[in-house]
């Protein structure tokens, strides 16, 4: 199971900062879309490195492939 964390900071002036962690790719975008709909308008959005990482399953496969290649050399 994947752990999805969301940190929401509502400032004194009402501005909202949302930090979505653990969700990658499409799942991350879905959270962003949902929270935007709930709260209001997007002022800024930054995609961090994890967003561009493949889904967990694909990453494990990649790691396994790399391990096989290492073993064969």
């Amino acid at each position, binding site marked *: *199971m994947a752990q999805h*964390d*969301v940190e929401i900071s509502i*400032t004194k002036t009402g*501005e909202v900062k949302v*930090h979505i962690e653990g969700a990658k790719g499409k799942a991350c975008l879905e959270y962003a879309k949902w929270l935007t709909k*709930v709260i209001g308008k*997007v002022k800024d959005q930054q995609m961090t490195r994890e967003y561009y990482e493949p889904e967990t399953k694909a990453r494990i496969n990649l790691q396994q492939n790399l391990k096989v290649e290492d073993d064969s050399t």
Partner: protein
Amino acid sequence: MSTVLILAPVIVSSWPAIAVAVTGAASALGFAVHKTAQEALAGVEQEQGTQTVEIDLAESQVLAQSLATNQQIVLTKGSIRLVVERDARGRCKVCATGKGHGKAELKQAAEEFTQKLTQCFVYNKVMKELKSKSFQVVNEEVTQDESIRIHVRRWVD
């Protein structure tokens, strides 16, 4: 890390939900809430030297179908009176009045209240939505700069 979003809140809701946020903001800022405008305004006449300042929450909409007659909430703190109501365009409006207070002071009071109202409204709405999506609250705190920080988590297959 994954994604960081900065959002500007938009208050679109029925009057009861806004009224809950108004009450929360009033409590946080030390204002007394009056059930009816008549109760707060009874016996009060516009005296000389009483200033009035109005502030609209630009990004707000009080849904018309929820509008009943005389929907307004009156708050008082010392000699400052705030009236929160829906204006003709459907926006939420805060009107500050007070004898012996300058316009700048009243504007500051109204702005401080609208900011707190926005914070309370967003908090109530976000918590309701997060619970509906089965998020569990890991941590919740009010920081030194008066921000509300919520950390929630859920497990996904």
